């Protein structure tokens, strides 16, 4: 409750303490959301993300095979990433798939950290190293260099 009130006060301050401008925060309709398969489909089919697909695909299976997490929970970031992958902001144009990425990376890192403690450590390191190198190469290729 205190955090919510403090947040609204800070947002009010960011609008220069103008009640009219601050009311636009509620009137704009920018908070409207919906759910769709389209953002996830678009993201999954893009070339720069293709190197992550094998890694992402086998990690839910790895999570089921090794549900105990040592450092932090892996289920919550997976659920949140899935939620944001199917989210569409109908009020204004936005990229919820980008919001999902930190949670997806947390999930992948968590499962990776857990698997590093099993006897398959070396195989897993080599496999993930190859996928990372492929991901870096594909990501650098699509960056605008000029």
């Amino acid at each position, binding site marked *: *409750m*205190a*955090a*919510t009130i*403090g*947040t*609204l006060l*800070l*947002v009010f301050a*960011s609008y220069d303490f103008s009640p009219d401008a601050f009311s636009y*925060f509620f009137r*704009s309709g*920018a*908070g*409207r*959301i919906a759910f769709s398969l389209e953002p996830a489909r678009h993201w999954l089919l893009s070339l720069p993300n293709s190197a992550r697909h094998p890694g992402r695909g086998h990690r839910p299976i790895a999570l089921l095979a090794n549900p105990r997490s040592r450092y932090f929970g892996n289920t*919550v970031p997976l659920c*949140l990433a899935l939620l*944001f992958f199917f*989210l569409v*902001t109908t*009020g*204004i144009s*936005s*990229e919820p798939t*980008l*919001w999902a*990425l*930190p*949670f997806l990376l*947390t999930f992948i890192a968590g499962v990776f950290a857990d698997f590093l403690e099993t006897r398959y450590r070396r195989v897993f390191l080599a496999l993930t190293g190859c996928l990372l190198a492929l991901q870096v190469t594909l*990501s650098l290729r*699509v*960056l*605008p260099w000029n």
Partner: protein
Amino acid sequence: MIHACTYPNNEILTAFGLFASLYTAMGVAHAMQGPPRKWRSRIVLLTLTLAFTAASHVAAFLLALLLSIGLMAYLAVGRRAYIAPS
């Protein structure tokens, strides 16, 4: 993500704000199992992360708020009355 980080835009602020808000909310819920003197700094941090999220995207703020309340209600066993006093 690298592309989004290379030019000024609110999407990357929203992404990090959302992530920070939800994990800070979990941190606050864990801290609520301890003495109240340790809550204040974490609640201030949660306020700041929620404010950054709200300033960058309204929908993300609403989602962060709802998900934070849900995660805190799940984690703060025995202290749920402090999350939203009636």
